Structures are given as C-alpha cells and as structure tokens.
C-alpha cells in the first residue's frame, strides 16, 4: 500500500510538471488537452507493452482502488478548500483528470477480469463502466469547446451507475432469495 501511494504521488507530480511545461509553452487549453491525451496514450501503451502482467495486477487490485480513492478524496478536499479561499479550478487541472483517467483504466481492467459476462454480473459491469462514460463525456465537451456536448454520455454514465448499483445491491439478491425458496 505505501508503494502504491508513492507511485500515485509520482503520477500526480508527473502530470503537474507536464501541465506546467505545457502552460510555459503558451499552448491554449484545447491544445493542452490534446497533448495530455497523446501523452496519456503513449504512457499507457508503453506500460502495457513493457509489463502487461504487472500493470493488469496493479489496475485490478482492490488495495490500489482504495489508494486511488484516498488520493481523489485528498485532491477534491484541497480543491474545495482552495475554491473556498477564492481560487477555484484546482480540480479542473490535467493532473486531476489524470487521476480520474487512472481510476477509469482500473475500472475497465476489473470489468475485463470479470469475463465471461453473465446476467448476474450485469450490475457490477454497469457500475464499473459508468465512471469511464462520465469522464469521456466531460472530456468530449471540453475538447469540442462546447461544454454541454457530451452530456448524453455523462447522463448515460450516471444512469449506468444508478441502475448498476440497484441491480447489484438489491435486485440480484432478491432474485437469489426467490430462487432459493423451496
């Protein structure tokens, strides 16, 4: 767990440095976003080629998910406190998007691990795909320059989250109980 926390701290520092370098080059927000996406794809591709087993184990580890959650909570707390102090936008930086992208990659890897897909796993799949849909929708809106553009993706993501939770927590156990009755 401490190693994972250190790795995540390195991940955040890396993207903070890249964001500062991109800002120093005088690139506009949309070009910064394009450069971020390209760097993210290059890094993800390189890691997947160099150590696929290690990367898959890391991304599908529950401990890593908890560590990511703790980092996101700390980042959002800092962002909220900064906004309260009159400095909004801390959580809209590329470094925060990088944490969200890593969380989405983890969720997709876990979804991939749960194959073969059955009706019993529908809720789990919906819940774990939902954050990626929300992130993609938000990025689409940001890339296109029209903030509300990816709203159907975001709406779909939230719908997946709620339906998936309801299925996983309530409907599936209720069906199991009914099947178990003599």
């Amino acid at each position, binding site marked *: 767990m401490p190693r994972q926390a250190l790795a995540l701290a390195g991940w955040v520092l890396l993207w903070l440095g890249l964001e500062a370098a991109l800002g120093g080059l005088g690139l506009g927000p949309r070009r910064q976003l394009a450069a971020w996406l390209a760097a993210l794809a290059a890094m993800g591709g390189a890691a997947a080629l160099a150590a696929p087993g290690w990367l898959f184990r890391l991304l599908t580890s529950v401990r890593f998910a908890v560590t990511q*959650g*703790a980092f996101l909570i700390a980042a*959002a707390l800092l962002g*909220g406190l900064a906004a*309260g102090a009159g400095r909004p936008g801390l959580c809209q930086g590329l470094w925060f998007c990088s944490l969200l992208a890593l969380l989405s990659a983890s969720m997709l890897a876990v979804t991939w691990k749960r194959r073969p897909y059955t009706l019993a796993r529908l809720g789990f799949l919906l819940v774990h795909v939902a954050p990626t849909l929300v992130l993609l929708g938000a990025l689409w809106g940001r890339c296109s320059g029209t903030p509300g553009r990816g709203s159907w993706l975001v*709406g779909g993501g939230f719908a997946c989250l709620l339906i998936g*939770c309801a299925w996983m*927590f309530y409907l599936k156990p209720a069906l199991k109980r009914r099947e178990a009755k003599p």
Partner: protein
Amino acid sequence: MMAAQAAFQIAGFACLTVASAWGAAALLGAGQGRGARVLPWTRAGFLFLGGALAAGALESWRAWGQLWPRSPRDHWGLVAWLIVFAVLHVHRIKAWQGRPALRAGLAGWALALAACFLLR
C-alpha cells in the same frame, strides 16, 4: 432538480448515519451481528449520494452548460461519494474486514459530514 439533489443527499447521509451507528455499536461490542448491518446501509447511502451527484450534474449542465460541479454543494457531495466509494472497497479487502473496515467507515462518515456541512 435542486430539490431532488438535496433530498437524495439528505437520504444518503441518513443511511450513512444509520450505518455508522451500527458500526459504532459493533466496535463497542454491543451485541453480535451488528457489523453485518453496516454494509447494506452503506450501499444505500452510496446509491442515494450517486443520485444526488447525477441530479447535481444535470442541474449544473442546465444552469451553466458545464458538467463539472460549480456549486459547493455539488463539490462536497462528490467528496462524500468518493469517501463512500473508498469505504465500500475497504470492506472488500480480506485483511481489513471486521474492525478495521468498521473504523474506516466511521472515519469516512465523520469526514463526509465535516466536508458537506462544515467546510462548504
């Protein structure tokens, strides 16, 4: 939509409060089987807080054309949802099941309450 968001958030915190009460009872040793009641209430809280997030995102899009939460209520609601996300996953780690997970749940509940009602 704002009313729905507030209702979902209050319902979510109510569920988390019940979960924390059962967790505290289990930690204090007040009867067997109290710990088993924590998870269902935490899950219900996660579902309601997710509903509040969805309602907040829709409201944000309608009002400002942006999906990222701008109001403090949305932002701290997101923090609370992330806390419950972490707590639910802590319950999945075998080495932490039992008292450590109950303690993490109580700490998360206190942090979420502080974030949503004191800091905003």
